[in-house]
């Protein structure tokens, strides 16, 4: 398992200074590290409930080998910021769009990931599919995502079907003092 530091977008200050994050959960991370699929699967398993629905995966019902294989098949990039996991999968039909996932309500690591994808990988459109009621929805809202739909009965958990909320954001809505300056598309 391999972890590499995402040096292009490293948090050096744990104090949130921008207005957009004033009401957000205080960030506890100091850097973001890229995980290979095997390490990502292990961290997803450790995340337990928070990892359920991450990029459409479920570490409770899927074993590590399957999680790693699915992440590789999707060409997912997974990052760890403290206890938080962040993920990105390219849209194969629209190279400027990525599907995003997170495991906690902390917006600052998410904002850094979005800035990294914008400035380094030329993504300018972001989609998140979040289980209804998941804590990470607050992070997406803080980063400028808006709801664009509801997928009915998309998940099955705890004996019942659950909806999944679809969010979307465009580049330029998530910049903060701590993240890289988004480039114009």
């Amino acid at each position, binding site marked *: 398992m391999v972890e590499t530091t995402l040096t292009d977008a490293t948090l050096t200050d744990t104090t949130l200074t921008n207005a957009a994050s004033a009401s957000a959960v205080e960030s506890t991370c100091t850097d973001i590290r890229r995980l290979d699929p095997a390490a990502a699967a292990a961290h997803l398993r450790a995340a337990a409930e928070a990892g359920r629905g991450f990029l*459409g995966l479920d570490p409770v019902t899927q074993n590590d080998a399957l999680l790693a294989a699915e992440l590789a098949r999707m060409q997912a990039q997974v990052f760890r910021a403290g206890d938080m996991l962040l993920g990105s999968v390219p849209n194969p039909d629209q*190279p400027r769009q990525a599907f995003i996932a997170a495991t906690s309500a902390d917006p600052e690591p998410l904002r850094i990931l979005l800035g990294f994808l914008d400035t380094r990988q030329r993504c300018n*459109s972001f989609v998140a599919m979040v289980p209804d009621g998941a804590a990470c929805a607050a992070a997406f809202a803080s980063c400028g995502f808006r709801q*664009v739909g509801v*997928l*009915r*009965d998309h998940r099955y958990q705890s004996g019942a079907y659950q909806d999944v909320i679809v969010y*979307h954001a465009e580049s330029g809505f998530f910049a903060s003092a701590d993240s890289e300056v988004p480039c114009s598309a």
Partner: protein
Amino acid sequence: MMLRGYRSGDARLLSGPWTAGELLGLPVNGRPALVEDAAVEPPRDAAVELCIAPGVAFVRFSELDWTARRARLEIGIQPQAIDAVAMLLKTAVAHGFHVLNLHRLYGWVTPAADPPLAVLGDAGFQREASVPAGNWLDGAAVQRQIWGAVRRG
């Protein structure tokens, strides 16, 4: 109309002049001749259920989740068989719900490609999400929608 499993002799049905990844892949009007045909791969393992309507179309159930009992549905219809689209879609839904015992089917629809939305509604699909810039078509990012059908009863 019946669906059956994919055989190697069905390979010619796996590509055609439609928009890639669509719930209802139909020939696109005004498609430039230089554009490569859309295609799906033959199945390599049990991760995808690839079915064939002989001589008409492929019907692909991918992103299968056997816990949530859901699948993404993709259909590619050959140009000479577009009159069969309504029956084919209903057959695909019935196959997903009653043969594969799935609870939910969903797929991506690009309105700019002018799909027959009424046919989707008649087969039990509803528009569930509209994602800006979800597809690339004719040199621009265009909206893409997610349509879903849920089995009741």
